[in-house]
């Protein structure tokens, strides 16, 4: 019964949607202080390469590899962030763009370590690892009626799902905390925020480092889900793709990047014929959205509207669940 429902391909797509959601949130976090970072693809690459190399060469457990990848990315984020975040937003966008390019060039040229533009294959696979560990405890996927292959993809999906929920939960909490309010104040008016006693450099670097950490984390997950990475995966196009998740979905609320990543990852899979023109459509989407709805599809007003609508309906039909989020 369960076996018929599970198509590895669908779960693969679902896993990529979840990774893209994490990436989208990483840009959203930096943007929530009004800073545009285009280095997230680079940080993603750092995370992916760090984790892949550590697990291949030092036989580190995948969990530690992923954590190390995220931390290295965050560290680099702080190093890049401190000098550049003192400048205006446009500078940061350019420097981060340039940083991403430098990372890519280094990946291509440091052949002894990264195998150049060929990329690294044979990276330990999360799903197989989970299966191996569970088998060590005497578990067999056949017990719940699944092939090994199906179980692997199912386990990856469930793991990523839990992680993504955790990430969303954390950043929603943070948004309502002192830190989140500081971010919002800086986004609205840096000078006013500074005069209110907010240490804007600290909070900007914090947001930038969080973005770097999160994209490094997503990159490491990506490496262990796909088991193959190459410098082309983390180039300018990836940076723009991540940016589009946020621009399309909405950069004001966390649901924006989530919706953007979900919709834009699914669209080319469902509409196969679009896939060839995908980037052209992306370009058009950006231009039109910036002219018509620069805050993205989902914004605070829309959420409030949905909330009140949900409330009204709740009273009418008497279903108690008014908390739609």
């Amino acid at each position, binding site marked *: 019964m369960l076996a018929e429902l599970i198509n590895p391909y669908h779960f693969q797509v679902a896993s990529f949607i979840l990774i893209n959601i994490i990436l989208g949130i990483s840009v959203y976090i930096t943007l929530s202080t009004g800073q545009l970072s285009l280095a997230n693809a680079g940080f993603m690459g750092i995370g992916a390469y760090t984790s892949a190399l550590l697990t291949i060469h030092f036989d580190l457990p995948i969990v530690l590899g992923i954590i190390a990848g995220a931390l290295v990315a965050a560290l680099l984020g702080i190093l890049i962030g401190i000098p550049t975040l003192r400048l205006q937003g446009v500078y940061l966008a350019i420097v981060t763009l340039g940083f991403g390019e430098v990372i890519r060039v*280094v990946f291509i040229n440091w052949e002894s370590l990264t195998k150049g533009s060929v990329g690294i294959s044979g990276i330990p696979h999360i799903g197989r690892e989970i299966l191996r560990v569970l088998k060590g405890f005497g578990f067999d996927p056949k017990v719940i009626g699944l092939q090994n292959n199906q179980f692997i993809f199912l386990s990856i999906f469930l793991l990523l799902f839990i992680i993504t929920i955790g990430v969303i939960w954390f950043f929603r909490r943070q948004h309502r905390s002192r830190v989140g309010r500081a971010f919002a104040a800086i986004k609205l008016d840096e000078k006013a925020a500074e005069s209110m006693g907010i240490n804007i450099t600290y909070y900007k670097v914090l947001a930038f480092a969080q973005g770097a950490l999160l994209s490094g984390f997503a990159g490491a997950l990506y490496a262990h889900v796909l088991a193959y990475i190459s410098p082309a995966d983390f180039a300018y196009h990836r940076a723009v793709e991540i*940016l589009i998740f946020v621009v399309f979905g909405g950069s004001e609320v966390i649901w924006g990047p989530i919706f953007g990543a979900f919709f834009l990852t699914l669209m080319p899979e469902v509409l196969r014929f679009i896939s060839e023109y995908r980037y052209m459509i992306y*370009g058009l989407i950006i231009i039109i959205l910036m*002219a018509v709805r*620069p805050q993205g599809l989902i914004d605070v007003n829309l959420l409030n509207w949905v909330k009140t609508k949900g409330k009204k309906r709740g009273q009418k039909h008497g279903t108690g669940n008014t908390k739609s989020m």
Partner: protein
Amino acid sequence: MLIEQLINGITLGSIYAIVALGFTLVFGVLGIINMAHGEIFMFGAFIGVIVTTSLQLPLWLGFLAAILITAIMGYMLERFALRPLRSKQGVSHLAPLISTIGVSILLENLSHHLFGAGNHPFRASFAEINFQIGSITIYLVQIVIFVISVILMMGLSFWLGKTKAGKALRATAENLETASLLGVDTKRMITMTVIIASAMGGIAGILVGMAFNSVTPQMGLSMGLKGLAIIILGGMGNVKGAMAGGLILGLAETFIVVYGDSGYRDAIAFLAIIVILLIRPQGLFGQKIST
């Protein structure tokens, strides 16, 4: 050897300078980083290839066609991607940047579909002509590139400094509202700036095609990124800074290929801006601004 490399570096640098001028003009007047400039530059190069190689027409027609088409693209860019944002209230300063990124993505992939992803050779009829001075070989192409670049730079400096339109443009760059009050048609000036910048990008595209004998859809991106690096290096919105920055980068890249590791050539520009932002954030030639 050294002098030959110097000449190569100056040729490359003068092309970079023209690309960077396009960026710096738009930034000076509008305060916008035009991320689509590299792709307009790439289209200029492709128009050059089509006119001279596919249609077998003379080179000057190639220049004319490239200028015309990139100018039209500049107008469209201003009309559809920038103007709608300007009239809106309360739009984030990042919106035009993101919007031009959209244009660049669209153009890059459009060129994939129009021209194919491969490498297009650019055959100038005089590509092989060279002179021997002592032990030094100089190609005619290099001289042509250099002369065109110098003419363009001098023309632009003259136009900005001495003509009425140039003064109006500088006034607009200084302060849009004041210029508007003083009777400058700022809307027209802005459109004109974007058109001129794009046409310069188109010319630079043909020059690059001639210099490297190859045109690909990806060249727009790498050149655009370098142009950005140069205007940070020279100081944002600074015309002289863009020229000097272009030459510096061209020489630096040429020399690292000769004396260092050629693989890292494309990274120099960005390492340079990261360093420059640490030491002298206003750029080599920029004025210190207090924010």
